[in-house]
């Protein structure tokens, strides 16, 4: 099915040839249609690429090539010309994605979020001073200072946020350092090894098995060269490469090797025809960087919060401005009210601390092997509702392992865990002794030397995947395999090839008295069986009759049905009389018997799931996250792995399963009865967008097999159309568009390509699916905790805005100054914000459904409860303290009402209080500052209670544990200490408007703090008592 070019080729190779096939091939057209949305957006770029990809080097003869690139096939380029070309084309490396200039990033921080409001506040301050100055040049500079402070706040928080972001970006920078690749190049008629970055077009390079192709290369000669193009086309089979022009399409022709693919075996010489960004991979990578990066959910939520707060403050500010102006306040006073309302409303320190909270979580996740590139992506994983996961390496261990054995008419299960430690099958049978000998001897894989201290499972092996599996398997069970092989010297060998489908070797016996030879053979089970006439049962050779053959087939089918690769094993003792010690075996003429052998057993291998994955999938399921497997592997294997890790749960059936159970044709089965579905890439190709949507929506367990990386993008888009937040794992270059498109792209840290890592938001350092689950957990936790932070912040807004409003309406001396509100926002509240990020989950957050996009961070109940319930209590409590301070100094509440104008008049220096005492302006001013301090202290005291109640949203605080989060207490201590310093330490600095407060005023608000705590406990109790009831709906945030 790989015959037709995949999506990229459709777009990239705009040759007439392909267009013609398009017309003739409806299906192909359809695919094209599907990717149209994407096409349109990138049309311009694609157009460029189309033009550039008029690649016809594969059609040219060697001579034409030499002319075209001014090179010589034998002697290569001259160093001088190479240097010129290098200067012209730049180094042969993918240019990293375009970075926003640092200045722009910084400026963005200065105008983002609340900054605009604060700028407005600062400008208003200076306007106010301008008016004051024009009236009275000697007026105080307070407003100038306030404006400066606001600007300073904007700049400092901007610098802080910028620094945080830069720090998290730096984590990724460490990734970029790759071991520089070397390329063997012919220049000046000499072979040289140079860093592949210095390659230029026209260079003649030599590649051999194991090398990464250093650039796009047109082959000039090839010796059995095979390349792995999987990262480009998704074909997992090795592709042979020769110097013959076989196809008009450059992607299909055999004489071109592509940059960043690997040469698996053989050797070849080629001419560099494209370097760096102009390579096919380079073009795909630049295409990926063009796919729009969607805003992260948390960014949307925070923006929503900013909009709410900004909206409210602008609304209140404007309304009050109009009211105050219309009741003939001086414009100056109105402006000052406006400043007060804006500054009081804006939680200046919040956004910076949100960044801190996110980076704390990012750090925690990094410890659990999830490296977060984009801070905001920390939360995205928490709201993920669909995970599209790779199979190989992510869900599985990425190594073949012996899973089952069949001998003595019995299937035994081998341990496939990472450690391979306890093999529990019966090893006493004589058959096992023979089987183990075949496994050990009929094997060409070897451990690389010098790994004595490495655990067996981690040793590096030279050899193919199945032989490696067998080698490790036998090493674990039998001990030193190399020693056994030494004792059974190999005298002849036929390696595995695809025609014979078996591998054979002949050995001497380890018993020096036994002069016979042992011939061992392994291969495709049916081919092995054909060659056998006997079968070994319990160590005895038995004739291979009909029933025994049937038993063999049953076992074979069963193991095959598990998606495992099955190998058959047989042996034959060559009699010493016919084959004396000196007998020379000739593998070409096969002068030895290869039939009537003795069948010993079957072994099946699979790339087993990682042991942590089934648990992780279960967790995902209970967390309401749909796990979709997308793999290039066979449907049967994919399905088997999906079953074993629980992506297809034990009870659910696919359409095929139902058909099989009911014994009816697949067409007769109601598609929607099947919970699970296994869809191949070919089926997917034929599906319309609606069909895909239907499929994704109606099956809860889906496995996509035999898909190309490009189809991943289609699947991701389908999921997103359903409104899901999609996480995608990927490693190849071709995954990068899907990774970009996904709400959160997760690249593999070990096997992942750089392009994938660049496109991803997150990197899994251990390539382990289970790490995603811990990421989900952290993401959900931080969302909950940010909710608590927001609720905590909003509460005191009421206590800071309401005084301004009442000050305007009731006209008593100002209860709290604008500067003082800054002490709360930027002083006492900072550590509590961060402390809430350390709060543990209230209950199992992995047992609830993922957050829907409509489930806001700051929702209506949160705003209402914070502002209109707790906020009102805080305000009232603070006012009680305020009134007490004034009353005890001489101004009883009744005297305060309507006092503002006289109170603030600088010429009135004998203002009478409730006791007939007369106050000078400065004495009143000092009392006003005492009022600010008292109001501030009252808010701080109640914020302590507010902080404690925010630890939980539903459970009782005592259930959660009052001391479960030590940082909360650090936060409380910080609040008290900062307040103490402001009052007693800096009480004499008049510009701060703080005074030393009498000790008793510190305790005045305590009853209200207790009231807050009790009220919130009652709220939580009702929520727990009547889940889903009115109270729950309106009071649970």
């Amino acid at each position, binding site marked *: 099915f790989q015959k037709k070019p995949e999506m990229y080729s459709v777009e990239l190779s705009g040759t007439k040839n392909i267009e013609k096939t398009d017309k003739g091939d409806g299906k192909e057209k359809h695919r094209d249609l599907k990717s149209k949305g994407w096409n349109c957006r990138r049309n311009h770029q694609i157009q460029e690429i189309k033009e550039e990809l008029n690649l016809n080097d594969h059609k040219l003869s060697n001579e034409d090539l030499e002319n075209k690139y001014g090179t010589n096939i034998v002697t290569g380029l001259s160093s001088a010309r190479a240097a010129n070309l290098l200067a012209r084309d730049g180094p042969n490396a993918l240019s990293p994605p375009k970075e926003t200039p640092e200045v722009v990033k910084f400026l963005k921080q200065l105008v983002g979020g609340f900054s605009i409001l604060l700028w407005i506040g600062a400008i208003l301050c200076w306007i106010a001073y301008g008016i004051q100055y024009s009236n009275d040049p000697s007026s105080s500079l307070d407003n100038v200072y306030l404006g400066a402070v606001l600007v300073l706040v904007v700049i400092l928080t901007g610098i802080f946020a910028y620094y945080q972001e830069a720090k998290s970006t730096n984590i990724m920078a460490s990734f970029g350092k790759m071991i520089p690749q070397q390329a063997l190049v012919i220049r000046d008629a000499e072979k040289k090894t140079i860093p592949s970055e210095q390659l230029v077009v026209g260079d003649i390079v030599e590649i051999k098995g194991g090398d990464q192709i250093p650039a796009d290369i047109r082959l000039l000669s090839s010796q059995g060269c095979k390349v792995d193009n999987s990262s480009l086309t998704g074909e997992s089979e090795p592709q042979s490469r020769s110097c013959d022009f076989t196809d008009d399409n450059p992607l299909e022709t055999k004489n071109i090797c592509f940059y960043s693919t690997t040469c698996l075996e053989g050797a070849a010489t080629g001419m560099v025809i494209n370097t760096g960004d102009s390579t096919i991979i380079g073009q795909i990578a630049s295409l990926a960087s063009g796919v729009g990066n969607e805003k992260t959910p948390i960014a949307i939520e925070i923006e929503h919060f900013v909009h709410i707060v900004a909206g409210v403050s602008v609304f209140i500010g404007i309304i009050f401005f109009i009211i105050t102006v219309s009741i003939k306040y001086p414009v100056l006073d109105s402006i000052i009210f406006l400043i007060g309302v804006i500054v009081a409303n804006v939680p200046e320190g919040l956004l910076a601390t949100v960044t801190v909270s996110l980076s704390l979580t990012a750090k925690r996740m990094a410890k659990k092997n999830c490296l977060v590139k984009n801070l905001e992506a920390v939360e995205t994983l928490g709201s993920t509702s669909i995970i599209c996961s790779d199979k190989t390496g992510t869900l599985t261990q990425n190594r073949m392992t012996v899973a089952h054995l069949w001998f003595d008419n019995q299937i035994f299960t081998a341990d496939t865990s990472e450690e391979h430690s306890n093999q529990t099958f019966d090893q006493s049978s004589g058959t096992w002794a023979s089987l183990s000998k075949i496994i050990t001897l009929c094997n060409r894989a070897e451990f690389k030397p010098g790994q004595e201290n490495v655990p067996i499972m981690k040793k590096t092996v030279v050899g193919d995947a199945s032989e490696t599996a067998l080698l490790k398997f036998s090493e674990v069970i039998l001990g030193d395999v190399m020693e056994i092989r030494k004792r059974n010297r190999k005298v002849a060998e036929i390696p595995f090839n695809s025609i014979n489908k078996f591998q054979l070797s002949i050995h001497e016996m380890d018993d020096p008295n036994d002069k016979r030879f042992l011939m061992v053979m392994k291969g495709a089970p049916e081919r092995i069986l054909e060659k056998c006439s006997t079968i070994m049962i319990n160590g005895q050779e038995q004739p291979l009759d009909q029933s025994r053959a049937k038993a063999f087939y049953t076992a074979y089918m069963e193991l095959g049905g598990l998606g495992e690769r099955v190998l058959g094993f047989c042996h034959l003792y060559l009699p010493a009389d016919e084959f004396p010690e000196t007998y020379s075996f000739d593998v070409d003429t096969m002068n030895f018997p290869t039939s009537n052998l003795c069948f010993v057993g079957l072994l099946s291998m699979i790339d087993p799931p990682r042991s942590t994955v089934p648990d992780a999938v279960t967790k995902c399921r209970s967390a309401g996250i749909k796990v979709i497997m997308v793999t290039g592997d066979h449907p049967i294997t994919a399905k088997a792995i999906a079953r074993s890790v629980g992506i297809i749960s034990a009870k659910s059936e696919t359409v095929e399963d139902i058909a099989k159970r009911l014994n009816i044709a697949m067409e007769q089965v109601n598609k929607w009865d099947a919970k699970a579905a296994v869809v191949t890439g070919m089926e997917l190709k034929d599906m319309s967008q609606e069909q895909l949507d239907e499929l994704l929506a109606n099956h809860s367990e889906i496995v996509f097999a035999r898909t190309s990386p490009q189809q991943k993008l289609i699947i991701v888009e389908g999921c997103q159309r359903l409104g899901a937040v999609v996480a995608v794992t990927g490693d190849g270059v071709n995954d990068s568009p899907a990774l970009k498109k996904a709400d959160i792209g997760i690249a593999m840290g070990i096997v992942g390509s750089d392009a994938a890592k660049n496109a991803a938001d997150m990197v899994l350092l251990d390539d382990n699916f289970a790490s995603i689950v811990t990421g989900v957990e952290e993401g959900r936790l931080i969302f909950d905790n940010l909710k608590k932070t927001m609720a905590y912040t909003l509460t005191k807004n009421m206590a800071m805005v309401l005084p301004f409003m009442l000050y305007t309406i009731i006209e008593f001396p100002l209860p709290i100054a604008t500067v003082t509100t800054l002490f709360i926002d930027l002083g006492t509240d900072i550590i509590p914000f961060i402390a809430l990020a350390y709060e543990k989950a209230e209950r199992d957050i992995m047992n609830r459904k993922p957050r829907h996009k409509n489930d806001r961070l700051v929702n209506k109940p949160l705003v209402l409860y914070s502002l209109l319930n707790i906020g009102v209590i805080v305000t009232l409590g603070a006012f009680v303290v305020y009134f*007490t301070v004034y009353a005890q100094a*001489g101004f*009883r509440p009744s005297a305060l009402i309507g006092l503002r104008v006289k109170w603030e008049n600088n*010429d009135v220096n004998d203002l009478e209080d409730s006791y007939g005492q007369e106050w*000078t*302006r*400065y004495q009143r001013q000092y009392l006003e500052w005492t009022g600010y301090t008292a109001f501030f202290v009252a808010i701080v005291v109640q914020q302590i209670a507010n902080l404690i109640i925010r630890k939980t949203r539903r459970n009782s605080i005592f259930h959660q544990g009052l001391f479960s989060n030590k940082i909360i207490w650090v936060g409380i201590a910080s609040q008290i200490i900062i307040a103490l310093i402001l009052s007693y330490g800096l009480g004499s600095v008049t510009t701060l408007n703080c005074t030393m407060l009498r000790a008793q005023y510190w305790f005045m608000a305590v009853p209200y703090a207790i009231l807050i705590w009790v009220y919130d406990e009652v709220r939580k109790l009702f929520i727990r008592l009547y889940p889903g009831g009115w109270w729950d709906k309106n009071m649970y945030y």
Partner: protein
Amino acid sequence: MRRQHRSRRAPTFPHGYRYRLDDQDEANQNYLADEEEEAEEEARVMGVPNLEEKEKEEEQNEEEEGQGQPTGNTWWQKLQLMNEYLWDPEQRMSLARTGQSWSLILVIYFFFYASLAAVITVCMYTLFLTISTYMPTFTERVKPPGVMIRPFAHSLNFNFNVSEPDTWQHYVISLNGFLQGYNDSLQEEMNVDCPPGQYFIQDGNEDEDKKACQFKRSFLKNCSGLEDPTFGYSTGQPCILLKMNRIVGFRPELGDPVKVSCKVQRGDENDIRSINYYPESASFDLRYYPYYGKLTHVNYTSPLVAMHFTDVVKNQVVPVQCQLKGKGIINDVINDHFVGRVIFTLNIET
């Protein structure tokens, strides 16, 4: 049951997915939601399928419109959405709440605030029971006493032209008005003549009415306005009255009366050649202290010291500083120009 219901619908109504997700959303928000509610919800969904379909059609239409003119309509759509949010005629909802829901929440909040108000009122009431209405709890903020002068009309700069009565008439009116309470007849009628040179201490409960000492207008002699109704302004010899701010319980320390002394603040000291003080002692007699607060000490009149600037340089601004002098008096606070001193300027034109 619910899932089956969905599955049956889904293939025929592909647009139904949206609703299913919405359902999920509801379930999310109250993920503890009990089965009962789910059943109820389902009943609703099943009971009025037409409504849902109608909505769906509308949405489709909207989508189509949106696709047709992707940019031009967004604001209009937003406005419509907003409008619908404010008042949704179909479901009779305003701000996403029905009338019933609104009344419920208003009632709840009413009770919440009522009880909160009750709690706060009780708190405030008991708190204020502990604060005496007769004596202020703390007086340290209002001490040491401030000083103020009369006449005072918005400004401490006395600019007037002797020959133009319009420029000083308002000072005279102000002083006359201020001294009405000091009229001898009134003082004799209301207040007692207590012995000078000692505190007029009245023991007894704090809620008992206290007597006040007489301070007669005539004490001010030439500045009383009795002989010269223009208080000297007509002759370029202005009278300025100085009073010390009242403070409950304030007693000049060590029994020495507080004296007043004025001089040129900056410049040539000889700009003021002579000042007459009335009473001649230029002091506040001890008998006027202590003050017992306005509730019980009803007729208390602040003692005054009149400064008669009999010979001031004319036609130039003369800054004058009058200070209180005495034990326990502070007159050099940097930030407060009215504690223990007062600064004003005289600019008398002829």
